[in-house]
């Protein structure tokens, strides 16, 4: 009986190890990092705030209710902005463009970067030469200058911002992916797939991409924060989102003219940008440590 029980126990242990896939193990490692989990929780909260902004915001973010920069009251805990709109409502709605740009631009950037990097690394030769020079060129451009230029060509708007940021920040991803693909190409299982006649597209999609997913996810999650700052900077400089859309960068720009009289206008949106970027960065650090324990920073 005792022997049989032991077997049962061992069997369940074996089963559990089986179930502990690589992703599950990564999740366990991630979960043990308190700061990363805190970051994730904050990100979820901000996302909920963005989605349910119409329910959460006490007032219409574009409605003028009071006089310029009026101080906080119990109904308006953050006070009013430079033309008398409820600042709390504007800050709540401001999460929307920040997250849309942060997440969608990162996605666009990652997709372009993976495609270019995988093509350069996999095909080598002149394809690599051309794509690598393209990557070099993009990396040498002063980023914010290029963004401002492109935004004024396309006409500033939310989707312009998403596209220009996505289209200009992929070089880093491409570089990392290219290097990874180059080393993957030397592995036996890729040689084997080629030997049995698998098409290039299929090898890239089924064998290369899944293997570089880890580093790409790490780069992507570490990249969101920087992109949120870029969106805010573009809007702050007048070539991102346009008034009267509530965007954190725009509220900052509005508050800039009234630093002396009404410093609160510029203060709150900046706190939100800072906390959101911090949350994404902590989350990204956690993802990196979870997916690639060798690369741990500490």
């Amino acid at each position: 009986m005792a022997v049989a029980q032991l077997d049962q126990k061992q069997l369940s242990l074996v089963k559990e190890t089986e179930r502990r896939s690589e992703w599950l193990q990564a999740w366990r490692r991630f979960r043990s990092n308190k700061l990363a989990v805190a970051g994730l929780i904050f990100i979820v909260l901000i996302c909920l705030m963005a989605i349910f902004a119409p329910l959460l915001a006490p007032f219409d973010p574009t409605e003028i209710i009071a006089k310029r920069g009026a101080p906080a009251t119990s109904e308006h805990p953050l006070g009013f902005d430079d033309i008398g709109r409820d600042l709390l409502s504007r800050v709540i709605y401001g999460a929307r463009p920040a997250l849309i740009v942060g997440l969608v631009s990162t996605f666009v950037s990652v997709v372009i970067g993976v495609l270019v990097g995988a093509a350069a690394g996999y095909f080598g030769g002149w394809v690599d030469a051309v794509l690598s020079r393209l990557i070099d060129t993009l990396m040498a451009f002063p980023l914010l200058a290029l963004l401002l230029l492109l935004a004024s060509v396309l006409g500033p708007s939310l989707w312009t911002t998403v596209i220009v940021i996505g289209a200009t920040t992929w070089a880093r991803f491409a570089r990392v992916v290219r290097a990874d693909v180059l080393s993957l190409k030397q592995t036996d299982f890729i040689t084997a797939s080629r030997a049995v006649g698998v098409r290039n597209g299929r090898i890239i999609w089924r064998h290369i991409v899944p293997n570089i997913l880890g580093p790409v996810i790490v780069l992507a999650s570490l990249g969101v924060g920087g992109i949120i700052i870029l969106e805010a900077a573009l809007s702050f400089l007048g070539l991102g989102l346009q008034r009267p859309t509530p965007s954190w960068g725009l509220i900052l720009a509005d508050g800039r003219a009234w630093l002396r009289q009404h410093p609160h206008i510029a203060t709150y949106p900046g706190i939100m940008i800072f906390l959101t970027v911090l949350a994404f960065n902590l989350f990204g650090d956690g993802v990196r440590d979870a997916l690639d324990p060798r690369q741990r920073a500490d």
Partner: protein
Amino acid sequence: MLNYIISRLLQGALVIFLISLATFVIMRMLPGDPVMLLLGEGEIQITQEQIDAIRAKWGLDRPYYEQYLVWAGNMLRGDFGDSLIRRGVPVRDMIFEAMPVTGRLNVMAFALALLISLPAGIVAGVKRNSPFDYATTIGSTIGVALPNFWFGLMGIIVFALMLRWVPPFGLKTWQGYVLPVVVLASEQMAVFTRVMRGATIETLSQDYVRTATAKGLSRQVVILRHAVRNALLPVVTVIGFRIAFLFSGTIVIEQIFALPGLGRLFVDSLYRLDYQVVQSLVVLLAALVVFINLLTDLAYAFVDPRIRIER
């Protein structure tokens, strides 16, 4: 080594060519007509012939490839053309006027960042998990997430408007440099500290460091002579790489503190569709980035022979 230098030089030249081409194309796609903008959009009565004459004078009537070749040829000779908006003022003069401000700001910020971040990163890496290490990590985590434009505005509110230690705008006195330099430096500092700390930890775990320790060398000698010198290599790469980001920070900071530097010149010219200034600036800055990256690469190859053999 010579082959390596030549191939890197050719790559750099190609990148600068591509950047000038891309900038030129983007500038032609900009909405709005600089001639019309200059004439105040119909406020001044002017005949079509006069408009054509202005276009012919600036070469705006010629085919695009010709315009590009003329412009690129002039750029190579150091002639950046005249501003379209500030009539008759050479772009070179405008750039030379603004350059010292941006140069001073960035050199000071860079020096400040290195002066603080390198020792901090080394000490944090050596004394891992000490209170100092935690403090540095927290500091650099905050520094990376802090948007520099907001940090600048908060600096103005607290140190210029409330405490009145420094002026809120402009560079009339040396105090005017304090806030912009600190804000510019904070971001670099955070990045460099992280890299320096990581590199220190990495090299300290290497076999040759253990050998040096086993040999009986003092901890100080091992750290300074053996570990730190090698740990500086990846840091140099990151520093070279960060040069490209410098201008992004400058654009925002000069806007916030109303400083008459290159960043402000760029934004103002862009708003006014001053083609000549914008495209000259972008190409010049890109060339600077390529040049500095080249220097760091060469320095790297010079210090670390493995890189020369690899390529």
